[in-house]
Structure formats: structure tokens, C-alpha cells
């Protein structure tokens, strides 16, 4: 039986975030929190491995108390156990401090049941760094497999895994040993629906809450703001361009006239665009 840990993060649905036009602050009231969409590919892949080979899936998140909702959702999809790592001391963590805390918590999980695989999403939609996965792998000294588009085979007995990894000019087929950490690429699978029994089970399961001590962290200089080498020194709105578009108009404003006028203006002012077009045009 394989024990798989899936790291998920609760994020604000950034499609719905608005910035206050005057104060440049984030208006987060009423913005729903969701499971980081990329993490669903990780969770689904873990569940598929469990379905195929038998296994146990633990979901873990580090976040504020309300992140419990994300874990409960994961349970309703079929995860077996859920751990919320939450402590005020974690506030302000950057990726280095986050991976430290998660790695430490995973070591605690491992005390009860050895971990064969850890799954992460490709990246989060709020942090967007794609660093936490590699960070956890390095701290736990695990093989790191990023941007995995498919898991070709898992040999539970030999503790071997073959995967396809997206690289810049093609796909790498890699074979490695378990335990390992995988970050799944988007579109690699589709999340299943929650089943009624799983929903009921999710509602009944207690999500474990671990504070810093339970997560095995003694040294507070390694977590939260203190444990973060990076600091945000400035937050600002992108500067608006001062020059607005030259609006092309003609007497008739008929399409033919408008585009004729556009081409004339553009080719006069930007002869290099014309040269470029002459190079690549197919007529």
C-alpha cells in the first residue's frame, strides 16, 4: 500500500479579486476561497494511484483556521486523512519558510506511516512561484519530479515510478525511486466528482489541527516572517502609459478607408514594421 501526501493550498479566487482604484489596496471582501486549481490535478493523480494500487491519501495544508474548508473538500473527493498546520507563528512566511514548515509537518506524518510520494500542484495562483514543491523535496532529500504530465507506471513493490516530464523542447521520460515528490502539470487529468458516501465521511472526519509544536518545529527563526529571506519592500499599481492610442478616423469611417489610413500611418512612422512584414508575409 502506498502512502501519498498531497499538499494543497487555499487561495482567494483571484478571478474575483478587485483592486481599489484609489487606494490601490486589495478588496477581498466577499472573495470566495477555493482550493488552488493546480492542486486539484495533484490530488486527482494521487487518488488515481490509490484506486489502482491501493493506498492512503493524506492531504495537508498550512494556512489560517478557515483553510480547513479546503481540506474538507479534499476529503469529499476521496482523501483519507487531513491535517491543517496552523499557527500564528507561520504568518508572513515566504516560500523558504513555507517549505520548512511543510517539510517538518510531513516528517511528523511519517512517524505514523512512511510516505512514498508527495504531490504538489505546479504552482499556486496567489503566490505563483512554483517553489514550494522543490523546496519540500530538497528539505526532505527526496527525488524531485516537476511539471509531470503523466505517471506512466508505478511499481509499488520495487518502489519505482516512471513519469513523463514537460521540458522546454519536448517530453522527458524519467524513471526514479520512491519516495519522491511530484508536481503535476495542469490538464494532466480531470478532478472527479465528490460521491455521496465521501461527502458524508468528509463531514464526519475530524481535520487534525497541528500547531507549530505538533508539526515538530522548535526553532521559530525558521518559520513565518523571521524564517523568510525575502521581504516585500513595495506594493504598487502598474504605471499607466501616458501616451494613448492614435485613433484612426476617416471621413467615411468605412472599414476599407480606416484600414488604408492605418497602414499608411503605420508604415510611414514605423518602416521597420513594413520590412518585417515583407520578410514574413505569404502573399
Amino acid at each position, binding site marked *: 500500500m502506498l502512502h501519498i501526501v498531497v499538499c494543497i493550498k487555499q487561495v482567494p479566487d483571484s478571478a474575483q479579486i478587485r*483592486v481599489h482604484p484609489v487606494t*490601490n489596496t486589495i478588496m477581498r471582501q466577499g472573495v470566495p476561497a477555493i482550493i488552488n486549481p493546480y492542486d486539484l490535478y495533484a490530488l486527482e493523480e494521487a487518488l488515481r494511484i490509490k484506486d489502482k494500487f491501493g493506498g492512503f491519501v493524506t492531504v495537508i495544508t498550512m494556512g489560517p483556521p478557515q483553510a480547513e474548508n479546503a481540506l474538507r473538500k479534499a476529503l469529499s473527493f476521496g482523501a483519507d486523512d487531513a491535517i491543517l498546520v496552523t499557527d500564528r507563528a507561520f504568518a508572513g512566511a515566504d516560500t523558504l519558510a513555507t517549505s520548512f514548515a511543510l517539510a517538518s509537518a510531513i516528517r511528523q506524518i511519517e512517524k505514523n506511516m512512511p510516505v512514498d510520494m508527495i504531490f504538489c500542484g505546479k504552482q499556486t495562483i496567489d503566490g505563483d512561484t512554483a517553489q514550494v514543491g522543490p523546496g519540500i523535496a530538497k528539505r526532505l532529500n527526496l527525488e524531485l519530479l516537476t511539471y509531470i504530465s503523466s505517471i506512466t507506471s508505478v511499481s509499488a513493490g520495487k518502489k519505482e515510478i516512471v513519469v513523463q516530464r514537460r521540458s522546454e523542447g519536448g517530453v522527458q521520460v524519467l524513471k526514479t*525511486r520512491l519516495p519522491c515528490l511530484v508536481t503535476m502539470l495542469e490538464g494532466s487529468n480531470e478532478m472527479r466528482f465528490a460521491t455521496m458516501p465521501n461527502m458524508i465521511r468528509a463531514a464526519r472526519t475530524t481535520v487534525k489541527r497541528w500547531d507549530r509544536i505538533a508539526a515538530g518545529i522548535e526553532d521559530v527563526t525558521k518559520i513565518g516572517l523571521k524564517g523568510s529571506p525575502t*521581504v516585500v519592500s513595495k506594493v504598487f*499599481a502598474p504605471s499607466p502609459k501616458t501616451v494613448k492610442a492614435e*485613433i484612426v478616423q476617416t471621413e467615411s469611417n468605412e472599414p476599407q478607408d*480606416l484600414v488604408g489610413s492605418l*497602414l499608411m500611418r503605420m508604415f510611414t512612422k514605423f518602416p521597420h514594421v513594413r520590412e518585417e512584414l515583407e520578410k514574413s*508575409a505569404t502573399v
Partner: protein
Amino acid sequence: MSEETKKPAGKKKLELDPRLAEYRGIWVFIEHERGTLHTVSWELLGEGRKLADKLGVPLAGVVMGEPGEDTRRFCQEAFYHGADHCYLMEDPLLKDYRNQPFTKGMTDLVNAYKPEILLLGATTLGRDLAGSVATTLKTGLTADCTELNIDVEIRSLLATRPTFGGSLLCTIQTLNYRPQMATVRPRVMAMPKRDTTRSGDITEHKLSMIESDIITKVLEFIPDQNTNKINLEYADIIVSGGKGLKKQENFQLIWELAKVLGAEVGATRPLVQSGWVEAGRQVGQTGKTVRPKLYIAAGISGAIQHRVGMDASDVIVAINNDPNAPIFDFATYGIVGNAMTILPALTEAFRRELANRRAEAVAV
């Protein structure tokens, strides 16, 4: 990164730990795979050159790969693109990219020669390596930057990146840690001029590893087929469509114009999400960053998440029926009108114009 919980730290006067003061110089990781160099490396050298000049330190390229002509050639090219120096690590184990030997090699190099700044491309390879190296060295890493600068007084890298879904930018510093690391997306920085009169020297360093130390094996490499490769990032002309095209059939108008121009086709995120075009064609914050000579945007509102991916284009032509669409705030030329009639007219006008030119050229 949780910018949300952090108060901006403000400018701190900082005494750098004396052990960190030894770190000097700027490094750029020269990325290549299977003989193909990723041009983001040159873009980074161009930017790195500016930073190095501000700090008054040398700029170095880091080339890792299997022994052979390629690595030497890449060092040479690195000099042409602005490097003063190259660190070269050659070993058969570095033939294909694998996390373990590259992380080991890069961390060893950093520990041996101590650069104060290390820049990598925000590619699949660059991000995999950067995250691993930063964690191993226990230093700060800022991902996906769109702008780099230096606070010369405290020798601090000011790494600016979009945050909160691109609505805001934030500047991140790594104060009391070295090296300061950042990844930058392809095409965000301008390509420097190649200057073949430049040269530099090479420091070679051995990878202290043997194959049996490396757990992950590469069984196979399946190259992408050229026919379905989308070369949006490096296209010189792009025609893009947005939701203003209304129906999937109308997207054909984009393809037709692109065909006449020999252009690549791009799109906004909603069109990718509704399956009108492949994900590889999305331009913007969660898609590709492009900087063509000409970008034609039809039925695109110009939302910030789209804009950050394309506003470095030389000339932007926007077609939108709403005179108040945000895209007109930053486009070069605007046509207020219906994309469904303007696009065919534009295709025709370009066809005629370019055919004329060709005829003239032949006549001469």
C-alpha cells in the same frame, strides 16, 4: 509567497553580515537543452549587464552540460551577449537536465565563487533548478520577475513581480542572505545586441558526482513535433483575438489575417478557457509574454492580465467597438469599430499592399 500578510518593510539601512560581504558579482544561468540554447539566457545577460555596471562588478555566465563543442560555443556566445566571464562545468552526467546533478553543480559553484546575484529563466528547467538551489543554499528567491533593479547603497536586488492576479506589482528584496536569486520570464527583458568583438575568460569546475549517486534516470526524450509547435514568444508579428469576436467561427478571421502576414496567432484567456484555441496561444500573465514588432488585437479589452503579456510590443494595433476600452490607453493605433468587418478589410489591405510591394521589387 504570502505578500498579503507582510507589511512593506520600507527601506532599511542594513549592515550586511561580514560573511556575506564576500559575495560579489552577478551570474546568469545559461540554459540549454539538447544543443538548443534558450534565448532567455541572453535576455538575462542583457539585464544582468546593466545591474553589474550599476554595482561595478563583473557579469558571469554559468554553463553546465556534457563535454563537447556546444558548451564552449555557449560560453563564447555569452561573452558576445555581455558576460565578462564564464563558469563552465562539463560532465557526461549533465547531458540531460536532471534536478539532482544540476542542483549539486550549481550549489557547489555558488559556494566556491560566491556571486551576490544569481538569475535564471522562469522556464520549466529554470524554475525547477532555482527552487532547489535556493532551498539548498537557504536563501531567498523571487519568481517570475518583470523588472530588476539595484539599490546600490545596500547592494540589494530589487525584484519586481506581479501579485494578486496581476492587478498590482510588488518589489521584493532579499536582505541578509546571499546570493539573491530571481527567475525572469522569457521575453520580459529586451535582447541585447550581439557584439562579436567581446571576449572573456572561463573558469572550469568539476562536478563531484558519479552516475550511481544519481537516482533519477532519463529513459527517453520525445521532442515536440515542429508542426504543432507554437512559437508565440519569439514571433515578430502576432494577431490576437478576444471575446469581442463573439463566436468561435469568427476566430477564423484572425487566422486569415495571420496567414497573409505570416504571423502567429494569440488569444485572451477566456477564449482558451472556452476551448476556441489551444492553451499555448494564451498571451498574458498566466500565458505567454510576447514582444513582437507588431501586435494586432481584435476584440480584446486590454485587461491588465493580458496587457502585461504584450505591452512591450513595438507597435500595437487595437480594434475594438468600445471607444473607452482600456486597450486604447496603451495601444499605438486604435480603430473603433466592429472587428468582424475591420478584420477582413485589414486582411485585404495587407494582401494588396504586400503584393504591390512584391511586384515593385520584381519590376526593379
